[in-house]
């Protein structure tokens, strides 16, 4: 598990790819909007960048594996621990990505867009990243195993991530409007529930398709 982490960390180009992706997409938002004056718009844009960034990161990662550099690792480690390592790594990567994109949103649109948001925003970033990371790692692994490429993960991923995205964007809207636990708690619980559900399912199911 530790080794997997190290290996992934070494893939500098993935990290740079994500940096570039986030930078350019936030800048495109800036070019077309110039200023954001509603919580709805901000939360939708923010999580769209997050969602596509997640797909981007995942696609990059799995296409690296086609080269078979990790073949030895995959024969040694159990599929569960590989999935777990990958899942945790990608969730952390997504936390980084989302923090980065929020920093870029601040840079381009000004700090006042977050003025009403409290610490709950970080809860959403962390929960959301882990949710998307967990589900997407599982689906991408499956898509990758299915036909050796990861083009399929968008077809499988978008519908499944829809409930995640819904509670994320609605909850973030509440946060941006200055909501407290009473109004955002439900979304966090739903998010946590969905994340745990996909984690448990993935842990249970991964060994069945990883062989071969």
């Amino acid at each position, binding site marked *: 598990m530790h080794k997997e982490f190290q290996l992934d960390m070494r893939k500098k180009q993935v990290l740079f790819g994500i940096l570039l992706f986030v930078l350019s997409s936030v800048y495109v938002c800036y070019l077309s909007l110039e200023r954001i004056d509603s919580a709805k718009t901000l939360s939708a844009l923010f999580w769209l960048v997050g969602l596509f960034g997640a797909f981007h990161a995942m696609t990059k990662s799995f296409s690296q594996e086609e080269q078979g550099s990790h073949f030895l690792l995959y024969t040694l480690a159990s599929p569960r621990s590989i999935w777990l390592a990958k899942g945790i790594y990608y969730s952390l990567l997504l936390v980084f990505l989302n923090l980065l994109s929020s920093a870029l949103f601040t840079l381009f649109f000004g700090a006042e867009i977050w003025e009403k948001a409290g610490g709950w925003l970080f809860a959403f970033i962390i929960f959301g990243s882990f949710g998307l990371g967990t589900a997407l790692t*599982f689906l991408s692994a*499956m*898509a990758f*195993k*299915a*036909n050796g490429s990861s083009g*399929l993960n968008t*077809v*499988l991923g*978008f*519908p*499944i991530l*829809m*409930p995640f995205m*819904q509670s994320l964007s609605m909850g973030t809207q509440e946060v941006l409007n200055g909501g407290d636990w009473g109004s955002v708690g*439900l979304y966090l619980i*739903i998010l946590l*529930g*969905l994340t745990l*559900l*996909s984690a448990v*399912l993935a842990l249970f*199911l991964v060994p*069945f*398709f990883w062989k*071969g």
Partner: protein
Amino acid sequence: MKHWYKILGSILLLYVAIFSLLHPLKPSLVQVDVSALHAGYNRIAFTGYYTHFNESKTEAGITLGNHFFTGDIQVEDNNHLAVTFDLPDSLPSTAVVFRVHNEQDGELALVQAMGMGDIVIDTTTDTTNFGTYARMEAKSAFGFPDLPIIYETIRNLNWHVPMWFTMFFLMIVSFVNSLKLLRVRNSENHLEDMLKFDIRSTLLNEVGLVFCILGLITGSLWARYTWGDWWTKDPQLNGALVVFLVYAGYFVLRASVEDADKRARISAVFNLFAFVLMFVLLMIMPRFASGLHPGKGGNPAFSQYDLDSSLRTVFYPAVAGWICLGYWMYNVRLRAKLLKEELKSMEN
């Protein structure tokens, strides 16, 4: 009798088709013959639906807030009566409600946009000398519930909801087949076993998806006639669409794997995932959110308050009948598929 469920299904669906379309609704008020009210003399003919104007003493008129305007009532028959009454020259608002009530039918009301003719609408109108209106509690009657907005479309309950029950049933059987597939141990004919379960779960999902589409269509039609739009933002509807997309993704996934053994395994895994997701999306998530679809904050369907006993006598057979039909459809598909494979192997 291995064909029992086909016969049962056919009989049940015949019963449901006849009964759900012919069984009466509870009494309701459907029409008034005027499009405008006038100062002074008014005569309005009311048309009821399964009402008993003739059989029990009926009062009729219009209400405005808690004021009641009524007068001389001429009952024609159980469904028709006319009332003549006088209206003042000015009224405080246009929010009139047409009402009929008697002991047997209870309280019947009709809200309809109305022209006010030569009546002056003045919010400062003195209303102290208008008569007041006393509500009359409804007695229970046997018939499909007549809910506001829904009216005759309540019959769709017997078509729309069983689609989802049938889809659930087929997906559950498919889920079980996928579980069995993944439990196949390495043995001499393990590939054969796996492919057997694979074909079953795929075809079950195929027929299940057909019912999902039918459920979406009947639901959309129902939404059009009750909520006024083909699609609305509602957790139950979102969930249904996601389920449709996820299961459509299942077939895309299958199409992209060449190797039969691998395809069976991967699609079984995805099927398990999809099923659990479907359960969460359709049965659990909508309970936490608000929306238009019935059953928010409780059971995701009509609750005991709006689903009364007469509707149940048709609804449960409808569910059973559609499930039998769904399984029959799957069975036909399965036999066709197996024959096709046999034919292919004979050609080779």
